[in-house]
């Protein structure tokens, strides 16, 4: 067995009195894909931030090629050949795609940055990911998915020895994931050591050779995937077994109630082609499609963030207009956005305030929720969604990615809406909570709430949808009902799309 490229041992880390890593270690072999698994808040991101010099560790050693190293900062780590994609897309929204790919290592000509060459290289680099975007335009004109790919491309490009990916596939659709895995296999063959953090166990089994599992900041163990049955793995992660969510298939049989909201030929030039959409009480409508298919744009229209060029909305038979999200909320809508960092969390505010804000906004400033009411509310959802936090007064920006996602969900559940629009609700959420949320979605629906759920995870959509819309080129290209809903059927409908190469 060869020497590990990177190996960390006895790593401790606490934020003040909150010990988040306790005697954790990990060994990365050359040419292996190593999955790092654990619940939300287990300490995965923190560990890799330590490995890559973003955080300092309180105790422990890091060996690179057997020699002890002390990564001063991320730049230093990069110079040592460790490339990283951190969990939240950590790129620069104000700079071009090309600059994001090459910042700090731009090609120089006479000491000056050679923009032409840089953009050429950038295009070449992204084409490997079958992403053909204008590398000269600002990054924040693209969806999370695109940004995610850019981040990966950059990391892969600078990683000489080790590549670390923290939930890279969270916002990718199947096709993109396949492309990515293809590349990972190639890098693996070149002898790169790859750390792969995800909550999609299928992906783990598809690509990982070994897995290290963390729980509550402790290392549970490292096992080869070959001899690690799914159930054991889940038990390792959660400390207890759960029913496999992929088995259950709940949505299909449900009988939708009366019509709640109906959107008639809604359209917004360049964002969404005219579409009709009826949403019934006690119905879950799943929305599938490749990235860029306009799912988010559709959701933004439905919630009144963008105003449609044309179209009427009637809620419970009464015609309504949506000028701003307030109006939608007044009608009992809720919307958990896709990009939690930008549109979701209020980072500096506490978990409590983040959960209470939407409800409070609906009540108006003159009728404040009492301290007690807020605390109860927060406590209830922290328990219900099992949000890992040092307390409801902890600023939400210090929560782990998945836990932040749960807070945003809690915010909307707290308003108990009549129509809940969820854009990638389970993004970055661990298997335990995943099951929990799907169960919740169902029970909400049984109580007569109407849901519209956008997700790139088809199993999930299949699991709860009573109706599935497939989007293509910003238009609804097909619909599946009841018994016809299956991953295969959805994929087929998406795949009718001409643009999709290979497959």
């Amino acid at each position, binding site marked *: 067995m060869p020497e590990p490229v990177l190996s960390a041992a006895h790593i401790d880390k606490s*934020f*003040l*009195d*909150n010990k988040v890593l306790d005697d954790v270690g990990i060994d990365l072999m050359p040419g292996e894909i190593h999955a790092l698994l654990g619940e939300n808040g287990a300490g995965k991101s923190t560990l890799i*931030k330590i490995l890559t*010099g*973003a*955080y*300092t560790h309180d105790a422990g050693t890091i060996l690179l090629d057997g020699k002890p190293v002390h990564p*001063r*900062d*991320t730049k230093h780590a990069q110079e040592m050949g460790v490339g990283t994609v951190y969990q939240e897309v950590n790129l620069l929204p104000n700079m071009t795609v090309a600059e994001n790919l090459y910042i700090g290592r731009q090609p120089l000509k006479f000491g000056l940055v050679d923009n032409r060459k840089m953009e050429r290289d950038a295009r070449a680099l992204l084409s490997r990911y079958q992403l053909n975007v204008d590398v000269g335009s600002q990054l924040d004109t693209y969806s999370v998915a695109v940004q995610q790919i850019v981040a990966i491309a950059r990391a892969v490009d600078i990683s000489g020895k080790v590549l670390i990916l923290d939930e890279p596939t969270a916002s990718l659709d199947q096709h993109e994931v396949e492309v990515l895995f293809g590349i990972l296999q190639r890098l693996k063959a070149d002898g790169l050591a790859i750390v792969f953090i995800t909550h999609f166990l299928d992906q783990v089994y598809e690509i990982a050779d070994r897995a290290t599992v963390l729980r509550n900041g402790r290392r549970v163990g490292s096992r080869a995937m070959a001899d690690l049955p799914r159930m054991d793995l889940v038990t390792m992660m959660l400390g207890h077994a759960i029913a496999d969510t992929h088995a259950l298939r709940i949505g299909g049989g449900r009988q939708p109630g009366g019509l709640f909201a109906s959107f008639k030929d809604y359209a917004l030039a360049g964002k969404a082609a005219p579409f009709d959409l009826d949403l019934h009480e006690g119905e879950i409508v799943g929305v599938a499609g490749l990235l860029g298919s306009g799912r988010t744009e559709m959701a933004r229209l439905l*919630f009144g*963030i963008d105003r449609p060029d044309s179209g009427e909305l009637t809620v419970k038979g009464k015609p309504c207009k949506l000028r*701003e*999200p*307030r109006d939608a*909320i007044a009608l009992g809508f809720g*919307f958990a*956005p896709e990009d939690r960092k*930008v*549109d*979701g*969390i*209020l*980072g*500096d*505010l506490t978990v409590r*305030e983040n959960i*209470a*804000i*939407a409800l*409070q*906004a*609906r*009540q*108006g*400033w*003159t*009728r*404040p*929720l009492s*301290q007690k009411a807020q605390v109860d509310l927060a406590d209830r959802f922290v328990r219900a969604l099992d949000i890992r936090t040092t307390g409801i*007064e902890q*600023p939400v*920006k*210090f929560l782990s990615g998945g836990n932040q996602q749960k807070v945003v969900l809690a*915010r909307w559940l707290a308003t108990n809406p009549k129509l809940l629009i969820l854009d990638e609700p389970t993004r970055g959420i661990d298997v335990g909570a995943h099951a929990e949320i799907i169960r919740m979605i169902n029970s909400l629906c049984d109580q007569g709430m109407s849901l519209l759920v956008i997700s790139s995870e088809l199993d999930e959509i299949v699991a709860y949808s009573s109706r599935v819309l497939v989007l293509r080129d910003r238009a609804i290209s097909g619909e599946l009902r009841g018994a016809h809903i299956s991953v295969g059927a959805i994929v087929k409908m998406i795949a009718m799309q001409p643009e999709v190469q290979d497959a």
Partner: protein
Amino acid sequence: MSRPLRSFIKPQFIALALILLLNWILFPGFFNLFFRDGRLYGSLIDVLNRGAPVAILAIGMTAVIATRGIDLSVGAVMAIAGAVAATMVGDGHPLFLVIMAALAAGLVCGLWNGSLVALLGLQPIIATLILMVAGRGIAQTITEGFIVTFNDPGLIFMGSGSILGLPTPIIIMVTLAALATAAFRLTALGLFVEAIGVNRSASTYAGLRSRALLIGVYTFAGFCAAISGIIAAADIRGADANNVGLWLELDAILAVVIGGTSLMGGRFSIPMSVVGALIIQAMNTGILVSGFPPEFNLLVKAALIIVILVVQSPLAGRIWYFIAPSRKRPPPSSPAETPATSTEGTLK
């Protein structure tokens, strides 16, 4: 919310104590108070009294800064309000009307700023710069360039009268601070303002009326500016449109930031901003009584600000945290709460 004990030993109070101590060393009579014809006198009272205008500006500025904005026009608004008050009282209007008119002027100015920021989406600094430049002109057109003097006892009372033995400005400052704090904290306004400052996009998604709120806070700032404009005019019994409140916007902002409200918006505390204003005034009064030659004023001021900065800096916070007996409560901004992980890296 259960207030951790630490939050009462704020660095601001340490800074204030330091400066008062310094003043006392330079001028032993600093803490002397004496009572004459129904009013308290002494340097401490001066600090409060002279600090009041800036403190009042700071109250409004706090709300603006909490929304990630800034208001450079408050000085000019002071001038306008003062001018309105002085000219109207000169024309023999009743005091009540005069005050109302002056306050109204302030509200209008604030409304203007707010609209530029919220509706036209101009950057706050540039939006308010417009009024900062034009405002003095407007004030001077009102006074036609003269220093309009008056001796209406009622109006003068606003500046140099006294209630319960304390100068009126102090009373006004305290009342306003109390009312404002109540208005923000006993309703959900405070939460909303902080939310907008932290992440406007997310706040809108959550259903906040961000536009209305923005207009609101700028209007409030204008209102506060008007009040301190009236006080300033009443104090010298005249409206000096060209000089009143000149560069006071900087002091007000400084006060807010010393008070611990971040220019990046979010968390704010009106009382602490008032403390910030008093720190600044303690500094100025100290310079006056110390008897340094005036060419040293700026140096002393700079030096003191730097000291305050160091005392309040997260770095000091960390050190204080590690020497502090109880490790239970995190200091205002501890490594953990400093997401700028790079600084963590460089602080090894």
